[in-house]
């Protein structure tokens, strides 16, 4: 609209310069007020990042969390894809169970944490329940949508050529819904990653200060907040969590383009 075009060099340098100035102002402000240790500072974040990485603390916590995310994600897919495909193909099932599923989907997964702890214990399985719960609904929604959008003529053609129901599912329904299933998987994984942090934070609050071993990034954050009181580390964890979210999303998008070049999204 107004203003001249921003050149390519400026497009990179301008935000970088602003970021540097902001960091410098932030650093100076923290030093001037002698609030190091109370407030995070850029150099402090870098320092704790280096320490946490070289000592392996962050790697261990991250791999614990990521492992649970992947298991919960797999459980969500194993339950969600068949359910979604069934709902998407049989309209009566959809009408009967959609209200129930919508109701369950509206419960924030983290709200289940007390029941999950009661059923599965604080050791990590409770967080797993929350993650699987978070992952299952994107799978259901996208699988049912995919099944509904599969070209009916293809199904009819397969039937006319004598394909049984199982053959129709295997050769028409599944291949036709793969692009949308992929989208469902991407949303499910992103949601699973957010909810593992929430679940581990909630579990961490329960067991903080009891000297238990740290199991995941969420528990590590609670321990850092209440026991070690290292504000710089908290910011570092946050950045790492964001980086993982970014990598998950970018990686799955690239995988989708590579595996399914015909599907745009």
């Amino acid at each position, binding site marked *: *609209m*107004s*203003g*001249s*075009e*921003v050149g390519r060099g*400026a*497009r990179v340098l*301008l*935000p970088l310069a*602003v*970021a540097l100035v902001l960091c410098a102002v932030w650093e100076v402000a923290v030093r001037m007020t002698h609030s190091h240790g109370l407030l995070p500072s850029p150099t402090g974040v870098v320092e704790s990042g280096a320490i946490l990485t070289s000592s392996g603390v962050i790697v261990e916590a991250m791999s614990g969390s990521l492992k649970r995310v992947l298991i919960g994600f797999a459980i969500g897919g194993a339950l969600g894809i068949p359910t979604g495909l069934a709902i998407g193909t049989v309209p*009566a099932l959809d*009408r*009967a*169970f*959609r*209200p*129930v599923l*919508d*109701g*369950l989907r*509206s*419960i*924030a*997964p*983290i*709200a*289940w*944490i*007390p*029941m999950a*702890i*009661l059923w599965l214990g604080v050791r990590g399985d409770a967080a797993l329940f929350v993650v699987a719960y*978070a992952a299952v609904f994107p799978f259901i929604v996208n699988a049912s949508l995919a099944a509904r959008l599969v070209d009916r003529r293809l199904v009819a053609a397969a039937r006319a050529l004598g394909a049984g129901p199982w053959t129709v599912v295997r050769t028409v329904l599944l291949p036709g819904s793969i692009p949308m299933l992929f989208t469902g998987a991407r949303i499910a994984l992103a*949601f699973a*990653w*957010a*909810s593992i*942090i*929430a679940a581990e*934070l*909630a579990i961490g*609050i329960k067991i903080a200060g009891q000297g238990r071993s740290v199991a995941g990034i969420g528990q590590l*954050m*609670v321990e*850092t*907040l209440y026991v070690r009181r290292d*504000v710089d580390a*908290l*910011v570092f*964890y*946050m*950045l790492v*969590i*964001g*980086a993982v*979210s*970014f990598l998950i*999303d970018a990686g799955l998008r690239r995988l989708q383009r590579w595996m399914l070049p015909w599907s745009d999204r």
Partner: protein
Amino acid sequence: MARLFEPLIGIACALAAWEIAARVAGNATLVPSPATVWNALVAMRGSELPRDIAASIVHLVVGYVAGAALGLVLALVAGSSKWFAAVIDPFAEFLRPISPIAWIPLAILMFGVGGGVPVFLIFYAALFPIFVGTLDGIRRVDPTLVNAGRALGASRATLALRVIFPATLPSIFAGARLSLGVAWMALVAGEIVGGDAGIGWRILWYQEFFQMDRVLAAILIVGALGLAADTLLQALQRRVLRWLPASEGTR
């Protein structure tokens, strides 16, 4: 007629499965039966329940309105100044993958345990989808409409208010609905981990007293509130976007 009863069949199946699970477990703490939870719900009705629900709604509304307002203003400025956009875009792209959940410990540090934590999380959860959605909408406004408005002598303000803003509404709503799931979870998580009021906080409170029937009742209320929020947003979307062709307005 049959279509009216079909959802009831689904609900009946779910309740039956729940009842069977409760009987098999044979332990009212481990799996409270539907009847127990209903009784808990009735007992909670007169006391703390309305206050908790009100507290959660206040958190949601205050945080969401503040986040949406800032997102809208930032997007409008970025939409009219390419220099501002060049600075703010990378920051938004940098912060966007950091989910509100990851902010919880820092929010506790900044605001202390209390209402500030869930409000901040909702503010943050609303900010980026609204900012990105609005900016995306502004960039995709049909230039013909803008030129037509200009040719007819519309001022900049009129143009922004009557042409550009309405044209961005569909993508704002799309972003808002997509982010509602994470926003709702951030609210509950914020109340559980760093709150002192609200339905999420109350879940943890009941857990302390091992009143699992009340815990489950509160969990169901979280679901009901989430469903209500989504339904409300959908209704608002339909109402505001009445002028859109159905295929675009309902996606």
